[in-house]
């Protein structure tokens, strides 16, 4: 079984080792090729049984898991994996199967993309999860937990932001990622470049072009006055900091 701390794995292995579990062998192979090209070391498995063998044989930094597996379901496998290993999981879920996705995140999966997915988005998610794991010195235990800051609540599983009155304030995908990135590094200054780096690939062009726009939209939604912002503060010299006490439940 896997016992080695993930943080050392990150520093020791320059090429993170991924396990891709998908029943379609073409997708498996293409995904392996694609991820290898992007600098990962990839092992593939066709079902839960195969995946268990691979997990027993090697050490993996991250598991890409298709929830629609023949035989043992992806959800059952994810539950087993969580009990056995700290390796973060990115799920591939079927479009429209929201309940599966939410259950998967509740079981401890770290992120998801819906099939048919955009390979670049998957890549971005894998990198983001690995980065979080690296920064937190282990698997991100807080991945699916509710984040509370200044009476606001962010539910990462459902990507929902609730205001202090419990009313949902809708966020765009980019705004959610940005807020999550700021909350992950609360009370630390993040330059525009750092934010771009953290969010790259999550959204195409427009987001890169307009991180300031996204910040101002977020401030408006958080009712954080732009001139005298208290929550997301502008740091002289080009950066932002989310200044709040952050709790996770």
């Amino acid at each position, binding site marked *: 079984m896997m016992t080695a701390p993930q943080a050392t794995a990150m520093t020791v292995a320059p090429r993170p080792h991924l396990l891709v579990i998908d029943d379609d062998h073409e997708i498996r192979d293409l995904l392996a090729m694609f991820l290898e090209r992007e600098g990962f070391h990839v092992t593939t498995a066709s079902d839960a049984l195969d995946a268990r063998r691979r997990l027993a044989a090697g050490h993996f930094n991250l598991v890409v898991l298709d929830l629609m597996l023949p035989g043992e379901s992806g959800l059952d496998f994810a539950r087993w994996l969580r009990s056995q290993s700290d390796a973060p999981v990115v799920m591939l879920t*079927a*479009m429209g199967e929201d309940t599966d996705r939410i259950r998967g995140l509740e079981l401890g999966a770290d992120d998801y993309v819906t099939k048919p997915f955009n*390979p670049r988005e998957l890549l971005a998610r894998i990198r983001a999860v690995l980065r979080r794991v690296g920064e937190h010195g282990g698997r991100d235990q807080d991945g699916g937990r509710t984040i509370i800051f200044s009476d606001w609540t962010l539910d990462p599983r459902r990507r929902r932001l609730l205001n202090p009155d419990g009313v949902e304030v809708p966020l765009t995908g980019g705004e959610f990622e940005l807020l999550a990135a700021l909350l992950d590094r609360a009370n630390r200054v993040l330059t525009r470049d750092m934010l771009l780096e953290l969010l790259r690939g999550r959204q195409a062009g427009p987001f890169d072009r307009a991180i300031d726009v996204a910040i101002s939209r977020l401030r408006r939604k958080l009712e954080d006055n732009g001139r005298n912002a208290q929550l997301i503060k502008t740091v002289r010299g080009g950066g932002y900091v989310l200044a709040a006490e952050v709790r996770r439940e």
Partner: protein
Amino acid sequence: MKTLAYWPRSLAARTAVVLLLGLAAVQAAGLTIHAFDRMDLQRLGQEHDLAVRVMTLYRSLALVSPDARSRAVEDLESTEGQFVALSPVPPGEALPPAPIWLQRQLTAEMQFVPVPISARARDIVMLGGPDNELMAVGLRFPDGVWLNLRIDMPAPRPWHSLTFLSAFLMMTAAAGGMTLWAVRRLTRPVATLASAAEALGRDVNAPPLPETGPSEVATAAAAFNTMAERIRRFVQDRTFMLAAIGHDLRTPITRLRLRAEFVEDDHQRARMLADLDDLEAMISATLAFSRDSTATESPARIDLAELVRTILDETADARPELAERLTADVPDHLTIQARPVALKRALVNLINNAAAYGGSARVVVAPPTQTPAGLSATLIIDDDGPGIPEADRERMFQPFQRLEASRNRSTGGVGLGLPIARNIIRAHGGDVTLESRQGGGLRARVILPV
């Protein structure tokens, strides 16, 4: 045929009118017969009464001595409508002689009062009659003196008592009321059928009609239910088929997306990915329509104003060239109870339609107002496009319907955007309609309960 001005439009009212007219005719005829009969009876009574009164008086006077007569006449209590006098001449009133039938009748009636032969009237004169409402009768005593009487003969009244009239009116009213009740009851299935047909138009999964009541109604309801079931099956088959294709297409699309990553030519790769995005959007719409997304999501409080702004931001991000023409006039906050994911999809569909076909989207959210359905917010989405002809507007809410009959993807989607939006908004207890905007363009009007 010329339409009658006051001919009512509804079946219930028409049937009621016919039945009430019939009832009125029967009642009128009955009342007439009754009145004539009653008048005849009254006349007979009146005649008998008159004859007996006259003869009784005559008899009492004929049996006393001529001297005592005038005293006896003076002693007579004056009776209303009756004037008695002794005179040497017959009655001189300016009245025509009584009709022969009346004279005969009265003469016959007078025989009922026995008078000794010696005292019998030697002559009888009858003037007037019911037509004059007055009769003058003169009888000559054997000694030549005339007993002249003038007696009122009021015209017989067709309805004598108030009780009869009120009872008759009550009976008529009761019959009329029962007619109306029965007609309403009997025509209610027609209205039920109409509303069921209307409900089916709104929602293919509307509950079936109860197949009860009179046999004709039950048969019609059963036929209607069969038809609804066929339509439902038709729509379901079509949707299931598309959903199945959509599911099956996920794997090849994923493969193609991955393969596209290995295409060297950047331009070709971008175009391949764009095609794949289109394909995915179509499948996504079909899947969204095939499953009732509102059934699985629980309602929560959500800021509608912020939702609108977020959707416009996302649209602007996806289509930067339109960013200037995507505007919102919404309050700072407007909290409503809704299913966030479903409602967002509905509004995205409407706003994307405005952007795609109208080249702009101006969203106005009015503060909630009181409507018959409760407190509701109104959301208006205007565009500057060519609009939709009135005849086609409602059709746009039918699944797989598109303004373009060509089904050319480059000019539109699969025809599920508006049906999905309407399904979701109606599931929230609201509605969405299309109307033309003054100055061109299309206006989508969304009513949402707060």
